[in-house]
């Protein structure tokens, strides 16, 4: 058993036993869903279906239904793509990087954060696919032998790197998540009373029996997957940033992009985890497992990554002047004072000022304030991508071609629709899947549980 400083706040509050943990996590799955779940699911489903309708209309009509024009060929959809990929960074970061760093508090949130990651990457992947216009030839991004004069995809293009990065990230995250889920599905299977749910969880649990050898392999596989996923997390958003950084557009052609995008991704991802877990812990009665200390830890991550992002903004601004390249300087001047000044300053306020408030212990331990900031951060991070993408291209080298981007209602419908679909998936997850990593939380009960920490022989335990 791992020892932990006695003065450190326990990670599991109350006097829980192993059985209590099982009960607390399985009860919401076994009980009838509360009315609120049906209401939220209904709303999310309607919004999601509206989004699907917009996508179908887009596919039937063409990408012209978006608010793009000759100057602004990339705008709303790639903003949404980068935004969702960014959100999708927290889950694997929590489960992989924090596993390698032996941060035990991750165990309360890793399962739901990983689920969030997977659903967010689903939503992200949708945007490049529909931007192709002809979704049915989407498989052309793969290097398949073909009849077009052996025409291969361009491996020198960051867009193709993105195809590989996003699909690797999605599938590896999915595998990582599922391998952790198997033993927990077995727990639900062994408790299930109704034949249908017994059958379902029996299939989902792959016949897991919890043999000592299985656990030996399980731990190694988790560790190796964490080791593989850690550089993967950093590579994915670096590669997303290459989409811009390897171009020669002033405002995009920036070597600072990879680390700055990764920090931004972690920043927005943790904000989304806060938004979701703060509601989930309350709705599912998991306050003993996800409590103020967990929220505080996540707020510290938000503060650190937010500060990295803020530093990057200012560095970028300084370098645009220091480089002496007038086009570069203009791109940034135009961002701050041009027609999109409001987007730039919303981004600055949401992403640079708001995380600095987390220096105050009172604020970072306030759940209500955290919830508010988590939403502010995600609005700010959406604007960041919009500012980078649209303000850099809306005024190019020929003033006659200068233009503005106005989203069409299809643009907005697809975006809002993905938020709906995301919540459809997340609500289904919260209803049918164990939202806490049961088998992992049980391993820290004796090291970080309140009753064990308070017991007199805690220090003598081996």
């Amino acid at each position, binding site marked *: *058993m791992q020892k932990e400083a006695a003065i450190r706040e326990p990670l599991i509050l109350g006097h829980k036993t192993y059985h209590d943990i*099982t009960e607390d996590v399985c009860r919401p799955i076994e009980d009838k869903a509360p009315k609120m779940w049906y209401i939220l699911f209904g709303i999310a489903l309607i919004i999601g279906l509206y989004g699907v309708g917009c996508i179908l209309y887009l596919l039937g009509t063409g990408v012209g239904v978006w608010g793009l024009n000759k100057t602004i060929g990339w705008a709303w959809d790639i903003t949404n793509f980068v935004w969702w990929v960014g959100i999708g960074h927290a889950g694997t970061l929590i489960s992989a990087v924090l596993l390698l760093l032996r941060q035990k508090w991750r165990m309360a949130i890793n399962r739901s954060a990983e689920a969030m990651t997977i659903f967010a990457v689903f939503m992200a992947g949708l945007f490049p696919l529909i931007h192709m216009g002809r979704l049915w030839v989407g498989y052309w991004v793969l290097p398949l032998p073909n009849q077009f004069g052996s025409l291969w995809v361009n491996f020198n293009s960051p867009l193709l790197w993105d195809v590989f*990065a996003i699909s690797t990230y999605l599938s590896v995250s999915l595998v990582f998540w599922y391998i952790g889920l198997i033993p927990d599905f077995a727990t639900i299977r062994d408790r299930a009373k109704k034949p249908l749910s017994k059958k379902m969880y029996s299939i989902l649990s792959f016949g897991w029996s919890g*043999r000592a050898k299985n656990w030996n392999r399980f731990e190694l596989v988790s560790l190796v997957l964490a080791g593989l996923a850690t550089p993967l997390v950093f590579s994915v958003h670096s590669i997303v940033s290459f989409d811009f950084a390897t171009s020669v557009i002033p405002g995009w052609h920036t070597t600072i992009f990879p680390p700055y995008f990764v920090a931004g991704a972690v920043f927005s991802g943790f904000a989304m985890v806060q938004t979701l877990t703060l509601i989930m812990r309350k709705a599912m009665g998991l306050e003993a497992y996800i409590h103020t200390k967990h929220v505080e830890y996540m707020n510290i991550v938000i503060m650190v990554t937010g500060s990295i992002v803020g530093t990057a903004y200012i560095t970028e601004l300084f370098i645009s002047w220091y480089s002496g390249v007038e086009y570069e300087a203009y791109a940034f001047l135009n961002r701050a004072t041009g027609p999109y000044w409001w987007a730039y300053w919303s981004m600055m306020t949401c992403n640079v000022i708001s995380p600095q408030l987390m220096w105050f212990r009172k604020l970072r331990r306030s759940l209500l304030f955290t919830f508010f900031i988590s939403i502010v951060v995600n609005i700010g991070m959406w604007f960041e991508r919009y500012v980078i993408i649209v303000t850099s291209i809306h005024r190019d080298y020929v003033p006659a071609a200068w233009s503005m981007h106005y989203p069409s209602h299809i643009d907005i419908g697809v975006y809002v629709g993905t938020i709906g679909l995301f919540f459809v998936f997340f609500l289904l997850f919260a209803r049918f899947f164990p939202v806490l990593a049961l088998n992992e939380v049980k391993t820290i009960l004796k090291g970080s549980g309140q009753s064990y920490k308070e017991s007199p022989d805690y220090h003598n335990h081996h």
Partner: protein
Amino acid sequence: MSDKVIYVMYDDDHILKDGAKKLVSNGVKIAEVFSPFPIHGIDPIIGIKNTRLGIMAFLYGLTGLTLATVGMRYFMIVDWPMNIGGKPNFSYLDNILAFVPISFEFTVLCAAHGMAITYLLVNKTLPGMPAQNPDPRTTDDKFVMEIRLSDNSNFTVETIESLLSDTGYFELDKKEIK
């Protein structure tokens, strides 16, 4: 062949570990331990070797890296060299920087999936497989030690039971296998 199996259930991982230590030091072979979460330190006691899946992951990763390198060299250098902004494309080395991201991603892809699939296969955990834990409570809060008489020909059920009597077990169950 008929065999007698003893299932000893404990309600704490440390008590089971202490019990297992005692049994093993008396020469009893423990066939299996079922638990709701990994019991750290049980493997050397009951004689389970560390898994070699890590080596497999490395080999799968190496395969991925090789495939990516061979593939990209063929597509971009041999079969259809593209002139992109006049950048050199005469050899793989000239162009290697552009191939780094995909080489990395494909290595990770193959290592992770290869290892995960191998893990499921060697564990015999696949969709539709029946559960094999002796008691449904072993996925909740109970820990079960399985002792087979065929592994312990020097002992009788009674002698094993007497060894177990002061290990603080929760339940004891005997089964005949035909």
